[in-house]
C-alpha cells in the first residue's frame, strides 16, 4: 500500500516538474480554465439562489389574479366583475387590488404604488421601500410629492421605511391608502387594477381559472403556480442572456479541450518517447498524463467554484451588476442566500473536469503506443 502511494507521489513529482518546464503555457491554461469554471459557476449559483428564493417568497402570492384585457392590452377591471366571480363554486373571497407605476422624472426612477391588502395606511401618509429611501434620501417624517394626472402636486408624509431585508420584493414599493391612490392615479371609481381571489381548495385553482375565462371572456386569470413558474423560466439555462453566457463559456471550453485533444507538441511527444526508451510502460505514461490533467482540472474547478461563491454571495454578484441594473436608477440592494444545488455542482464537475482529463490522456495514449524511436525522430 505504502509502496503504491510512494509510486504515485513519484509520478506526481515527475508530472509537476514536466508541467513547470512549460510553466508559461500551463499557467495560462490554468487561468483560462479557472475563468471558464468561475463564469459558469457564478451563473449557476446566482440563478439557483434566485429561483429558490422566488419559490420561498412567492408561495404567499395571491392564489388567482384576474386582469382585464381589451384590444390585447391591459385595462382597468370593473369592480362589479367581482360579484360574478364570487358566485363561482369554490371561491371564498374576491378583493379589488389597486396598484400601478409612477415615473419620477427628477430621479429618473420608476416606483410601484400599491394599496396593501392587510397593512393599513393612514390617509396622507405613505410607507416607502428601502430602495426609494436610499435613492431619494427620504426617511420617516419626510414629505414626498407626486403629480397626479390632473397636474396637481400631491404631498404625503413618510410614515415608515420598509425593512432593508425586504428589498428583493419591495425596494421600489410605495404603500398608500385606497383614497389617496384613487386620487393620485386617476383610476376611475368602480374600477380596480385587478381582482384577487382566494379559493377554498388549492387543487381547484386551475379549474376555477378556466371557469373565469368562460364567464368573463375579456378577463385574464393568472394563477399562483404561473407566477412561481415565471421565475423558474426566467433563470433557467435556456433563457435570455444566460444561454449567451453558457454558450460563450462552453465554446471557449470546447476550443480549449480541442487544442488538447488534437495532439501533443513535439516537445511533449519527445518526452514520451524518451520515457518509453528508458523503460516506462505505456500505463505509466498514461498515469502521468492522468495526473497532469487532474492537477490542472481539479485545481481550476475548485478555485473557479470557490471564487464564484465569493463573487455571488459576498460581493452581491458585482460583475453581473451592470447587466442586471440596465438603465435602472433604482436598483434593489440585496444579498442572496446561498442555496446551492448539489446536482448542478456535480454536473459542472462532469462537464469540465472529466472531458479535460480525457482529452489529456487520449493523445498521450496515441503517442505512447507508437515505437519510441519514431516518436523521438
Amino acid at each position: 500500500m505504502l509502496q503504491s502511494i510512494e509510486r504515485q507521489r513519484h509520478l506526481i513529482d515527475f508530472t509537476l516538474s514536466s508541467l513547470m518546464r512549460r510553466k508559461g503555457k500551463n499557467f495560462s491554461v490554468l487561468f483560462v480554465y479557472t475563468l471558464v469554471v468561475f463564469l459558469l459557476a457564478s451563473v449557476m449559483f446566482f440563478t439557483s439562489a434566485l429561483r429558490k428564493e422566488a419559490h420561498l417568497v412567492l408561495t404567499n402570492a395571491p392564489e388567482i389574479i384576474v386582469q382585464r384585457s381589451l384590444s390585447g392590452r391591459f385595462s382597468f377591471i370593473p369592480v362589479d366583475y367581482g360579484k360574478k366571480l364570487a358566485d363561482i363554486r369554490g371561491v371564498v373571497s374576491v378583493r379589488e387590488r389597486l396598484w400601478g407605476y409612477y415615473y419620477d422624472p427628477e430621479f429618473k426612477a420608476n416606483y410601484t404604488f400599491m394599496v396593501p391588502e392587510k397593512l393599513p395606511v393612514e390617509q396622507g401618509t405613505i410607507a416607502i421601500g428601502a430602495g426609494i429611501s436610499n435613492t431619494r434620501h427620504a426617511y420617516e417624517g419626510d414629505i414626498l410629492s407626486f403629480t397626479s394626472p390632473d397636474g396637481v402636486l400631491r404631498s404625503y408624509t413618510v410614515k415608515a421605511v420598509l425593512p432593508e431585508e425586504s428589498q428583493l420584493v419591495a425596494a421600489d414599493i410605495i404603500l398608500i391608502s385606497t383614497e389617496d391612490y384613487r386620487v393620485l392615479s386617476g383610476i376611475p371609481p368602480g374600477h380596480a387594477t385587478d381582482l384577487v381571489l382566494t379559493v377554498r381548495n388549492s387543487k381547484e385553482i386551475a379549474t376555477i381559472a378556466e371557469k373565469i375565462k368562460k364567464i368573463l371572456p375579456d378577463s385574464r386569470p393568472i394563477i399562483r403556480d404561473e407566477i412561481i413558474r415565471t421565475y423558474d423560466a426566467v433563470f433557467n439555462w435556456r433563457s435570455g442572456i444566460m444561454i449567451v453566457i453558457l454558450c460563450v463559456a462552453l465554446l471557449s471550453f470546447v476550443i480549449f479541450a480541442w487544442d488538447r485533444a488534437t495532439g501533443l507538441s513535439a516537445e511533449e511527444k519527445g518526452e514520451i518517447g524518451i520515457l518509453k526508451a528508458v523503460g516506462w510502460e505505456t500505463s505509466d505514461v498514461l498515469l502521468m498524463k492522468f495526473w497532469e490533467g487532474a492537477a490542472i482540472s481539479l485545481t481550476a474547478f475548485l478555485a473557479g467554484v470557490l471564487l464564484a461563491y465569493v463573487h455571488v454571495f459576498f460581493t452581491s454578484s458585482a460583475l453581473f451588476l451592470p447587466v442586471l441594473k440596465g438603465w435602472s436608477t433604482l436598483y434593489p440592494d440585496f444579498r442572496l442566500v446561498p442555496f446551492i444545488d448539489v446536482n448542478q455542482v456535480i454536473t459542472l464537475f462532469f462537464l469540465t473536469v472529466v472531458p479535460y482529463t480525457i482529452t489529456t490522456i487520449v493523445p498521450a495514449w496515441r503517442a505512447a503506443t507508437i515505437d519510441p524511436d519514431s516518436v523521438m525522430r
Partner: protein
Amino acid sequence: MKPSRKSTFFLCSLAALVLLFAVMCVHARVRQAAEMAGIGRMAAMVREVGLTDLCLFTEASYTRNPSQTDLQTPFQEHPVSLEHFPSGSLMPPPEHQKDNHAAIH
C-alpha cells in the same frame, strides 16, 4: 535540510482547496438557516401587501412585474418598435403569457 517534494506542495494545496470547498458548503448551510427568518418575513410581506413579483428590474413595467405583464407591452405601438430595455434581454416572457397570446390570436 531535505528539500520539500513538489507532490507534497501539490497535495497540500489540493487538500486546502477541498477543505475550503467543504467550508463553503458548511457556510451555505449556516447562512441558509440564519436567513430563513428573513425570508419568512419577506414572504409575510408578500401576503400582507399582495405582491406578485421579485423587484429585480425597475426600468420597465414588463420586467418589474413579469408575471403580470402582457406580450404587447415591450413592443409598444408599431411592428418594428424594438424592445430596448437591457433587462428585456434577460427576462423572457413567461410561459402562461405565451399560452394566453396563443388563445387570443
